[in-house]
């Protein structure tokens, strides 16, 4: 009962292979235009890849390899897609929108409306049941769209940025709902939010430029990011280079002292990863217990929660506003980023 | 009377009692008022019979009969169209001529262009409409032109007399060549100006029984009515001549 996919769509420079176990939820992360929505479109049957093959349990969704041309239409696939826009049917009431999937699956009208009411209540949108989609706010529409997708009870649920447009109350509420719903379900969820990936998914994949660049248990991907994107997502600093006996020499020539992970062989390509909170900022080149001290020029300062994030030399440091004010930090200044060796992890790339 | 009916043309079963029948008459549109009168006379004279009238242009009627329309009687406004049917052996015997018609000048009330003779129609600035040579009234017009030695420069060559009459009665044209009967029907909407050359082109109306008719008895009876005194009276009241 696994789901396997393998598809290429040349026009979008897309080529991805993916396997999902039963009841597994995968988070898809990646920059804008990476091909995340394309991936869901191909699985849902809205896009026809140039080649590849997908099997969901017993069912071959498509097989376009070696001259074969099997392609199941969307409605027979048992996948439900929450697209990036809510796209509620404008001519139906909110309730009818949510009941659409159950109705299409053959439920009786009464039964489908019951299901629809249930899911509307779940997303706290029961009060809008009789409205037209045109009379909803952006966030309300998004919630109804989620209810509509969940109401279909699919074999594979495809969610494209379900949390977009939601307010700070609705987002955690839906996150909890999805956590419950996805617990025993196979799903693929696209998100730009690390929290969604951590909470909802068993596994994360990072798509960049149409290809999977990273894959693994969500925590592992976020804690030991190998790609710049995953590192950025986790808020981590990431330096690529060559592994040495004492740590890593960056591509820019920086010597980083750290304890390489097991399996890191000197001479191999590797990455050094450390949190911005592990970085201290000094005005002069201090000499103390920390082994790493790099002179960098500040490019940018921005608030980050109740801290200030200092961007410099491609790295970032989180410090308190008070410390920032004391040091008189401004973009253009040269400062020293100091990191303790124990705070840096080095992995093979 | 014959008891057979033509399939598909009966209005309903209830109007055809036993021993009666329906006769379907295809007639030129210009015969509408006269044939409607004659038909009701026929129905009155033969209780239980029903006359179904189908009016259209003569060439339309010919097409329809050629394509197997369920007609019993066909009355055309000219001999040319009827000849097509006799050539195709679609009618019984030779058609009988039951009416004639001649051309007359029609002018709007008040006669704005002061037309008084056929030659006046050729005066510059006079807007004359005639029938196109392809239609009976048009070929009659050509004949008259030759007889009168006058060449008309019409502003329009219409495809039917009705259209000529329409142009004149609306005042759009200063004069038109139409049939005497048309002028009569139009009442005071137009004024008729007879001209001597008109008898050079006498249009004859033939009537005949359709070969595929299933009520030939009734058809013959109807034709007899048309060509008989009763029909003749109705026709001459409308301005038709006697052949």
């Amino acid at each position, binding site marked *: 009962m696994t789901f396997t996919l393998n598809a290429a769509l040349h026009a979008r420079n897309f080529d991805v292979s993916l396997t999902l176990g039963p009841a597994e939820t995968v988070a898809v992360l990646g920059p804008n235009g990476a091909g995340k929505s394309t991936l869901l479109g191909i699985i*849902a*049957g*809205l896009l026809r890849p140039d080649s590849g093959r997908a099997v969901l349990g017993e069912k071959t969704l498509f097989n376009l390899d070696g001259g074969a041309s099997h392609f199941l*239409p*969307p*409605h027979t696939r*048992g*996948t*439900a*897609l929450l*697209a990036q826009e809510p*796209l509620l*049917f*404008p*001519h*139906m009431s909110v309730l009818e929108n949510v009941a*659409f*999937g159950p*109705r*299409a*699956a053959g439920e009786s009208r009464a039964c489908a409306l019951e299901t629809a009411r249930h899911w509307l209540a779940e997303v706290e949108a029961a009060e809008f049941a009789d409205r037209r*989609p*045109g*009379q909803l706010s*952006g966030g309300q529409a998004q919630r109804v769209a989620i209810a*509509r*997708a969940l109401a*279909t009870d*699919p074999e594979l649920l*495809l969610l494209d940025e379900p949390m977009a447009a939601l307010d700070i109350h609705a987002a955690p509420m839906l996150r909890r709902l999805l956590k419950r719903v996805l617990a025993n379900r196979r799903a693929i969820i696209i998100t730009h939010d690390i929290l969604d990936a951590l909470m909802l998914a068993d596994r994360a994949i990072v798509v960049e430029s149409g290809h999977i660049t990273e894959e693994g248990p969500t925590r592992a991907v976020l804690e030991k990011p190998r790609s710049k994107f995953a590192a950025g997502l986790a808020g981590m600093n990431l330096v690529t280079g060559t592994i040495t006996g004492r740590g890593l020499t960056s591509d820019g020539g920086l010597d980083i002292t750290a304890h390489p992970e097991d399996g890191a062989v000197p001479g191999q390509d590797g990455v050094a990863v450390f949190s911005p909170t592990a970085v201290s900022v000094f005005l002069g080149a201090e000499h103390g217990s920390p082994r790493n001290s790099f002179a960098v020029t500040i490019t940018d300062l921005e608030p980050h929660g109740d801290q200030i994030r200092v961007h410099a030399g491609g790295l970032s440091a989180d410090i308190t506003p008070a410390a920032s004010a004391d040091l008189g930090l401004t973009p253009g200044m040269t400062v020293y980023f100091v990191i303790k060796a124990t705070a840096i992890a080095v992995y093979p790339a | 009377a014959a008891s057979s009916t033509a*399939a*598909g*043309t009966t*209005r309903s079963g209830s109007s055809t009692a036993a021993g009666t029948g329906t006769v*379907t008459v*295809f007639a030129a*549109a*210009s015969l*509408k*008022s006269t044939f409607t009168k004659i038909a009701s006379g026929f129905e009155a004279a033969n209780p239980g019979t029903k006359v*179904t*009238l*189908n*009016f*259209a242009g003569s060439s*339309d009627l010919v*097409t*329809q009969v*050629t*394509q*197997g*329309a*369920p007609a019993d009687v066909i009355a055309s406004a000219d001999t040319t169209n009827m000849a097509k049917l006799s050539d195709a052996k679609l009618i019984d015997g030779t058609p009988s001529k039951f009416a004639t018609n001649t051309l007359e000048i029609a002018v709007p009330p008040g006669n704005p262009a002061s037309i008084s003779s056929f030659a006046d129609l050729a005066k510059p600035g006079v807007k004359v409409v005639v029938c196109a040579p392809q239609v009976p009234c048009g070929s009659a017009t050509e004949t008259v032109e030759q007889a009168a030695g006058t060449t008309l420069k019409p502003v329009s060559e219409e495809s039917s007399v*009705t259209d000529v*009459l*329409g142009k004149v*009665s*609306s005042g759009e044209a200063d004069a038109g060549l139409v049939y005497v009967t048309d002028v009569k*029907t139009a009442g005071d*909407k137009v004024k008729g100006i007879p001209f001597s050359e008109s008898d050079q082109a006498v249009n004859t109306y033939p009537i005949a029984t359709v070969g595929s008719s299933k009520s030939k008895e009734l058809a013959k009876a109807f034709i007899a009515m048309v060509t008989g005194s009763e029909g003749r009276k109705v026709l001459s009241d409308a301005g038709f001549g006697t052949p």
Partner: protein
Amino acid sequence: MTPVSAPRSKARTGSRTNRRDTRYTGVPPWVFALAAAGALFVLLPLAAMVVRVNWGEFIPLITSESSLTALGLSLRTSAASTVLCIVLGVPLALVLARASFPGQRLLRAFVLLPLVLPPVVGGIALLYTFGRQGLLGRSIELAGIQIAFSTSAVVLAQTFVALPFLVVSLEGALRTAGTKYEAVAATLGARPTTVLRRVSIPLVLPGLASGAVLSFARCLGEFGATLTFAGSLQGVTRTLPLEIYLQRETDADAAVALSLVLVAVAVAVVGLSYRRPRALPSQAGTE
């Protein structure tokens, strides 16, 4: 731009905003001017007709048995033809707008042809096809059905001339609506037929409505093909336009008066049936 309070009924800056409608609808004023010209162009001839009517003769004329029979026949056949147009035309429009296959453009061009054929020729073509001597006539006759010169012939003739109207206006609407809602419906598990019934058709309802109204109107006014293919038998095939045509042989003004009945019927049908259709989601992010 000085802050001036303009009276509600006069828009100041060239765009009208309706009082009760809180949404944006900006129509430039010159559009109104041209629209007025267009409307006048249609309305003036109608007014001219009304002016000419001899009202004393009007009532007896329109209540005469032949007129009423013809009107009844016209309404019945036009309704039947419109249904037939919808049954055949909606699938045609769908196929033209949504599927793609070789020869599609040619098919579209051919489907439009009854529009250009002079109706009389259309009637002849129908005779050639369904007439006793026609392409299908013999097989049909063997089946015991006689089409030509029957009321069904009227319906066929009207459908033939009116079908393209429905197809073309519906195809335009389908293309304008796009396919994204249909795709969403499919991902929710709806079979193509369900998608069609519950999404595609409701979404293009304005287009379908105008198509049906156009077809109905065209059927109501159909003359040439009916005369040729169905003949002009009172109560069977003589629809109101044919009655008007015959009337014109004797009295053009009476014909005009009679066509006012047609006009009145059409205004009533169109005015009543053509509900202000719901537009697609017209919110601009804000509504």
